[in-house]
């Protein structure tokens, strides 16, 4: 499914200006950065409540195109700046991680 469709379906708020409307097949959910490095697959969307700048480096290294920040958490300004520079899209949602992951799972598997 296109990232654009996911954004509108989950009503995600974009925090970076642009995103690549690429095909997304799966997502990974974790707040442990080493776990994401070890187990997320390239191309997956990452759902987390971490907001500091290191999430962008993790996404860049793992070829993760988009990060969804849950619970309406506000990322640091530095995070947004770095993400725009590296071409990683960041979105936020007021959904909890459970709800965001659940809705996305349903969307991607139906």
């Amino acid at each position: 499914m296109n990232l654009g469709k996911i954004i509108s379906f989950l009503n995600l708020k974009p925090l970076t200006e642009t995103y690549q409307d690429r095909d997304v097949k799966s997502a990974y959910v974790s707040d442990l950065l080493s776990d994401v490095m070890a187990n997320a697959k390239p191309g997956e969307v990452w759902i987390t409540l971490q907001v500091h700048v290191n999430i962008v480096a993790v996404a860049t290294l793992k070829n993760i195109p988009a990060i969804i920040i849950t619970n309406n958490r506000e990322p640091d300004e530095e995070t947004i700046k770095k993400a725009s520079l590296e071409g990683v899209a960041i979105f936020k949602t007021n959904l909890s991680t459970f709800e965001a992951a659940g809705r996305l799972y349903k969307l991607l598997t139906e």
Partner: protein
Amino acid sequence: MKLSETLEGSFSLIGGDFSRGGAASCELKSILEKLHLPDNIIQRATISAFEAEMNVIIHAIAGTMLYSVTPERIRIVVTDMGPGIPDIELAMQEGYSTAPEWVKEMGWGAGMGLPNMKKNADVFNIDSVVGEGTTVELIIYIPKERSCAP
């Protein structure tokens, strides 16, 4: 860019500088991408480099990351001026971490760093002296290109 001889370089790492956490590894990734190495080789090299880089930032005062790439392998050596590891066997256990609480809140310090390095590198060597520092050597072998010619 095509690799015919050894390509070398280094990055300096500053302990506690989380704002640049991953910067060296991300730069290494773009260097490896320019060499058109296989994706999974780049992934394994940069994941293990990133974990080594973060260990310096979390635990040490400063460090360096040296890399050298030949057609056969990627070698990364990360050396730090840090507290050293008293019990390497214990530190290698998944889940064991000495990172402070605030670092754990950032999602680091899960005790996965050294095991991740070992998992992703073909050769993993660690040498540490308490009160002096730690050196990690990572080697990832590059598979020979398969020729399509008969």
